[in-house]
């Protein structure tokens, strides 16, 4: 492909991004003067049905999109990404970091009328977060007890120091509270409330027709007075992306969250005045595209080969031509949206350099054979995104140019997780690494050794580095935020040098929403938040 084509596509990309930016920057300011309109039904695209709706038991955006409006968390993020109290009013940590006290808000009741107390917090933390919630069990590993001296106080006691900012950053996702009086008898996992949630939130559960829709109505007794503005939210189950886009255009859907439409539809609707297409409101849901190496292949155990592979793939070109404005260059496991931890772009990087790639491969001793091939690798792409599929094809094309033949092996979700993270039956794998506001939650596990086989999205590469392990462990228990950030900067430098996983693309989920919506995308995890201030103009 010649440069002129590259130039034109860049220009188009810039124009499109300017158009979208114009859409993004102003809408909220322009309407700041309008008075909220009460009423209306908000229709949401629900693309992947989950097994249950309780966010205390499952930490995923697929649950928060519904459960997060019905149940509430102790702490959420405000417009600037700082922790703001929801069910908790205030908090303080002891000097040794082993005790964190939360003061809870008074006068809140569950949808069935019973009062919300610290007993609910104690029950949820000890029985759900610690035992069942994915990532919750790791986070609360050293939680020994939650004391409740009175109905408004919950004291979290830890065996080892828990950095306050880590806990506060994790609680928006991992801090949803369920009602003790509903879950205390019987098996938590089989409780019917998991499909008919009872919470304290702005919307009350009404109905769930499996395979079709979920409905929740306005909670007239919600503790924030005057809120919510909407009368009802309907989540429609639509698994086909093209059909969802059609329904948005037909006016039957108001909002498609978390990149629920195809890339080309999102780009197209972005130019339509009726819709706003933006990454704003999703900064807390950043993810990186990965290239995971299996060290059990002797070729990949050689660092020169890994670096050669990185140099051989032109990630910026891929982003410009295939992902448009919805992605940018990644510089490592901590994305640039993480203001508290991003170490900056000055870490070891691997820019596109085909000549260097070839030289490294030759130097490592893997010369081209008679047919031009050096060796072949099996690439397993995760099945959850259009971008992953395009990226895996691009990897295949790029590596064939330097003499590495790639065989793409398709799997469905369960099969992929088993093949890669349990059976280690892969050479290269590519998927998403989800960053959850703090590296200790779901990022460092990609690098820390000692992960049990079969744990997905963890270090299963057959690689370990004691230096990296120590940096990770120190950072997880370091209470001083400044020192913590420095430790994570050190961590990024180390893993970018060794390159057990390459993370060259950074993406934020894209929101497609009707231009009539107001007070949307106003927190970094807006799609998951409670929408108590969301309203629709006429």
């Amino acid at each position, binding site marked *: 492909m010649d440069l002129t084509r590259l130039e034109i596509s860049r220009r188009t990309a810039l124009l499109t991004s300017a158009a979208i930016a114009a859409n993004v920057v102003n809408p909220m300011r322009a309407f700041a003067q309008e008075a909220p309109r009460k009423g209306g039904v908000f229709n949401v695209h629900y693309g992947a049905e989950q097994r249950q709706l309780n966010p205390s038991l499952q930490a995923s955006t697929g649950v928060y999109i519904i459960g997060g409006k019905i149940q509430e968390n102790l702490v959420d993020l405000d417009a600037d990404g700082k922790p703001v109290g929801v069910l908790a009013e205030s908090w303080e940590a002891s000097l040794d970091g082993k005790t964190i006290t939360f003061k809870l808000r008074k006068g809140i009741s569950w949808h069935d009328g019973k009062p919300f107390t610290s007993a609910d917090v104690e029950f949820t933390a000890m029985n759900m977060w610690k035992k069942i919630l994915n990532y919750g069990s790791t986070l609360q590993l050293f939680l020994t007890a939650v004391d409740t001296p009175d109905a408004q106080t919950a004291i979290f006691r830890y065996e080892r120091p828990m950095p306050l900012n880590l806990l506060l950053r994790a609680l928006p996702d991992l801090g949803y509270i369920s009602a003790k009086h509903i879950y205390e008898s019987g098996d938590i996992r089989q409780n019917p409330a998991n499909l008919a949630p009872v919470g304290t939130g702005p919307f009350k559960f009404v109905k769930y*027709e499996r395979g079709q829709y979920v409905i929740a109505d306005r909670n007239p007794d919600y503790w924030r007075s005057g809120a919510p503005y909407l009368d009802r939210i309907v989540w429609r189950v639509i698994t086909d992306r093209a059909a969802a886009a059609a329904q948005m255009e037909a006016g039957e859907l108001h909002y498609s969250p978390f990149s629920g439409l195809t890339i080309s539809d999102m780009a197209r609707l972005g130019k339509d005045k009726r819709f706003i297409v933006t990454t704003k409101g999703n900064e807390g849901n950043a993810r990186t595209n990965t290239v995971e190496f299996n060290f059990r292949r002797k070729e990949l155990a050689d660092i020169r080969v890994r670096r050669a592979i990185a140099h051989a793939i032109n990630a910026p070109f891929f982003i410009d031509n295939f992902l448009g404005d919805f992605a940018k260059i990644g510089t490592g496991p901590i994305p640039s949206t993480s203001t508290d931890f991003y170490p900056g772009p000055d870490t070891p990087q691997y820019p596109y350099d085909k000549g260097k790639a070839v030289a490294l491969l030759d130097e490592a001793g893997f010369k081209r054979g008679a047919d031009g091939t050096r060796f072949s690798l099996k690439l397993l792409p995760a099945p959850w995104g259009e971008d992953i599929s395009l990226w895996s094809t691009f990897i295949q094309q790029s590596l064939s140019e330097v003499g590495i033949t790639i065989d793409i092996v398709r799997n469905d979700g369960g099969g992929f*997780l088993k093949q890669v993270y349990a059976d280690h039956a892969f050479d290269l794998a590519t998927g998403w690494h989800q960053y959850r506001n703090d590296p200790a939650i779901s990022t460092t596990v990609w690098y820390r050794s000692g992960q049990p086989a079969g744990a997905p999205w963890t270090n299963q590469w057959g690689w370990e580095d004691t230096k990296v392990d120590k940096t990770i462990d120190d950072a997880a228990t370091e209470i001083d935020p400044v020192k913590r950030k420095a430790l994570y900067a050190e961590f990024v430098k180390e893993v970018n040098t060794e390159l057990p996983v390459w993370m060259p693309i950074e993406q934020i989920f894209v929101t497609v929403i009707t231009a009539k919506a107001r007070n949307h995308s106003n927190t970094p995890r807006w799609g998951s938040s409670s929408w108590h201030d969301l309203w629709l103009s006429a």
Partner: protein
Amino acid sequence: MRILSLAGRRLAASIPTLFLILIGVFLLLQFAPGDTVDAMMAQMGGGDAATAQALRHFYGLDLSIPVQLGNYLWRLVRLDLGFSAIYGKPVATVILERLPPTLLLMTSALSFAFFFGLVFGVIAARGVNKWPDTLISTLGLICYATPSFWFGLMAIVVFSIYLQWLPPGGFEDIGNVQTGIWHVLDIARHLILPALTLGLIFLAIYLRIMRASMLEVLNLDYVRTARAKGLDETGVIIRHVLRNALLPMVTLIGLQAGTMLGGSVVVESVFSLPGLGRLAYESVVQRDLNTLLGIVFVSALLVIAVNFIVDLIYARLDPRISVES
């Protein structure tokens, strides 16, 4: 009463087949990489080993395979289809919820295909080798050759997006849930494109069979006798020809029942219909063994039932044939 006892005997005769299918699918799925907990992890976007372990125990996946199979068969004998891992509800409940859309889709697709296949087949046979025949036969073949999902997608683009005549998917209008006759009409409106898409291939098949069957019967002795008696062509067709020409058509319904259920997987996926086909696809992807086996069981029963009804109709159409043969 006779029909009931016949049905009972037919069912009893099919039991070995049913068991063969269920055991076969069960054992086959054991070899699939990953189990339902892996699929659940994939959906959750993360999880640790301890959670996975606990979940496996909860679903009974840590038992040995023969024990699992034995448990399943023992429950089946007591007509307990088990618990669905994906939905957290009894499989029987899940299937009953998803059965109506699929049944509606299949019956409307079948009726559409049968009726138009019959009509066009007769027209083609009447005007054999003249242009109506060539046109209809060619169009029929094109319908047969068109991939159903492709037709479905193109139909959405044309009828829902450009013309905006019909909804692009879903089973009913959620915004304003209708009641009574309006509800029925609403569902009907949503089913037009899916039924058309699913019925297209079968339309082509029925058309061809009807035409061939008609041609074969039109030249038989008793038809010539009827014509000689002075009966007009339409009367000949309706009174004498159709009854016999219908026999192969009816047989075909029985044979196609299974294929139609398979075809509904794709159609339900394209049109976002909450039916059994998509449920089957979901349970394969999520390794929900109980649900998949439940669907297999139900669809096998459906095929057997349809074949039984077909045999009954057959016997009425041709008195020489008795159902018990």
